[in-house]
């Protein structure tokens, strides 16, 4: 297992695309948070400063998806997967090693990105009217709801990476995998906007993105469709299901 881990780490580390994707993930996440914070005014009622500051995760997760999908589908494109499986014949070990590496890299990226988002929120949002004078507390990691939102967002990105890895293991083709994962993430929240309750509420409770991002809420928790940690639990379910499906197909199919 240790060898497999190290081999996967070397593969992932030495790909030229990986570094770009990591930088891109952090830059996009923080950048979108900054743009959303700058474009917001406190006149919009019911604002949740922490959730606003973390809005960049919506976009940053797409880069995490690309990173996780390429970690396996690139091997299928080049035929490298056959070499990898010759070196590590126990296929589930190979997948576990890949999952551990993707999770580790995503964790590092997510911590940087989320920290950047909170900093941006602390610096920009008071200028948009989210300050104590208007009855809002400043974004601060020392408050437990904010800490939950921040830690939850980091875990969210890691789980999204694992979900994408599982899907890509099952589908193999990078293009179709990325299309499928992004569709699974982005489409249900939009569909929820287009329909009315109770369908809307159910969609928000089971969709990986809406449920998982419930962890970012720090105000009016009662009006959220799902509780913060319960929502992250739903996403964990999605990630596990996807990895199990990917693992089963990896074992059953020819490479």
């Amino acid at each position, binding site marked *: 297992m240790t060898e497999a881990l190290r081999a996967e780490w070397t593969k992932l580390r030495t790909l030229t695309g990986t570094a770009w994707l990591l930088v891109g993930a952090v830059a996009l996440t923080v950048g*979108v948070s900054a*743009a*959303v914070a700058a*474009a*917001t*005014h406190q006149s*919009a009622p019911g604002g949740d400063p922490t*959730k*606003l500051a973390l*809005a960049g995760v*919506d*976009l940053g997760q*797409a*880069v995490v*998806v*690309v990173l996780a*999908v*390429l970690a396996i589908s690139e091997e299928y*494109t080049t035929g490298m997967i056959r070499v990898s499986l010759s070196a590590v014949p126990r296929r589930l070990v190979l997948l576990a090693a890949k999952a551990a590496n993707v999770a580790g890299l995503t964790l590092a990226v997510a911590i940087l990105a989320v920290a950047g988002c909170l900093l941006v929120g602390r610096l920009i949002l008071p200028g948009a009217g989210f300050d104590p004078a208007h009855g809002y507390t400043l974004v601060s990691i020392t408050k437990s709801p904010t800490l939950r939102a921040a830690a939850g967002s980091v875990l969210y990105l890691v789980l999204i990476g694992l979900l994408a890895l599982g899907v890509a293991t099952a589908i193999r083709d*990078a*293009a*179709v995998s*990325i*299309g499928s994962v*992004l*569709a699974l993430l*982005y*489409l249900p*929240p*939009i*569909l929820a*906007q*287009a*329909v*009315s309750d109770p*369908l*809307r509420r159910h969609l928000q409770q089971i969709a990986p993105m809406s449920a998982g991002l419930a962890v970012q809420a720090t105000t009016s928790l009662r009006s959220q469709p799902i509780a913060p940690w319960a929502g992250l639990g739903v996403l964990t379910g999605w990630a596990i299901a996807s990895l199990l499906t990917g693992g089963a197909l990896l074992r059953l199919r020819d490479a």
Partner: protein
Amino acid sequence: MTITSGRPRPTISPERGSFWSVLRAEWTKFRTVRGWLIGVVVAAVLCVAFTFVVANGNHTGGCTGPPSPGSGPNSPGSNCYTGHPFVPTGPDGEAVADSYQLAEQPLTGDGTLTARVTALTGLISSGPANVAASLAHTRSQLVGWAKAGILLTSSIKQGSPYAAIMATGSHGTRFQYDYTHDQAGLTGAVTDPSPRWVRLTRTGDTLTGYDSANGTTWTQIGTAHLVGLPTTVKIGLFVTSPVSFQGSSSGVPTQATATFDHIALNGHAGSNDWQAHSIGTSSNDYYTTLGTGSYHRVGNTFVLSGSGDIAPAVNPLAGGNTASDSLWFGLIVALIVLIVVATMFITSEYRRGLIRTTFTATPQRGRVLAAKAVVIGAIAFVTGAIAAAVGVPLGLHILNTGGNYVFPANAVTKLQIIAGSGALLALTAVAVLALGTILRTSAIAITTGIIVFVLPYIISTYTPGSLGAWLFRVTPAAGFSVLGVLPRSALVNSAYTMGNDYYPLAPWAGLGVLCTYTAVALGFATLLLRRRDA
């Protein structure tokens, strides 16, 4: 997947390398990859399926909160409602607002009514937002499109043809007819030292509006030809005052009160007996009014109070769906599938090295890209147009049977949605084809394509209005403006936001923005294709 030629290789002929043969080669490549054909069919099927889901997910009946005690459905103060309130239809088949206070007399044949408006004041509801508006909680404010003047209509049925000359809150004197037509006269508000004289004349089917500051020098503002006007019409004084959206996204009802004197009716009038009507102010009418209006007469001085509007119906007040409302989500789904297919149409050639064979067969690389663009663009257009042609009637049928109100859509509107959906998909497919050519790997091209079309809808949920609407102006997502079939009206101040079905750009302007992106991407791709090794 393997790319094989379905036909025997054609013998080398002089036209080899001509655009038509390249086009045929690319078409053969596309139709022989089963996964791509399946993808296109799946795109169309998903679009229609989700149109069905979204249309079914919209229903007007229901409760918006806990029911208030002792109130039935549709009664003021109730949070429950069944079906949709009545929205009148105007003479041109468009949805209109037609709620006002009228004091009228029948007029047979030609005639002229003159009046002086000496005062125009207003009230705005100031009660709590969750309580039905009533005259008990108001403060003094006259809204810009409060109207008071002379109106001639074929009948007092809502949506009837009419012409009117009126003083307004802040838009000066106006001559308006048939809900959408408007001509400006004298500017300035009605004040005690500066009253407004108005006059409306009927000659056959021609109605002419005049205004004057002193009652002696008259200026013609405009004329209207109301074809098929009956011999006997109603003519009289009217007052109305629309819902204000200043500082409220849901709107606050208002009421205006006007004082008229120097009333002179020349012509074959029925009697000197004025009949007062409150039109379109019942609880079954969609327009939110403040009170139902009133009429007092002392000698030749008339005081009328009215609430409502005589103008095109707009959202959010009308609470209507549009013919494209059920379609947009299905189109996003179809777009994502087509983005994947269009990217793979070029990136799979790079991955398998087929691109070198392609360029050996056709050394003119720009021609290859052009042929690919034509093939994928045509396929995407047909997919979008077919999906919309099925989805629009399906969505309309479900919405109508579900008790929703849908703004009337004529053939031109439907054609705009169908052709627009096709164009949206085609331009996007060509743009991501170019992106795939530039990047050669599918991952970034697909991610970019999906983010660009999907993220604006998600971001707009965080930041109501501002950033979301801005994204629909400058990003390729502006192409979705082709689904905007609800025109803004300059005659109505409303909350023209995305949430109320108003896209920030006009349909074809939005498609133009997308077209620019496609053209730039295609140009850059052609340049790189020529410069780089394959």
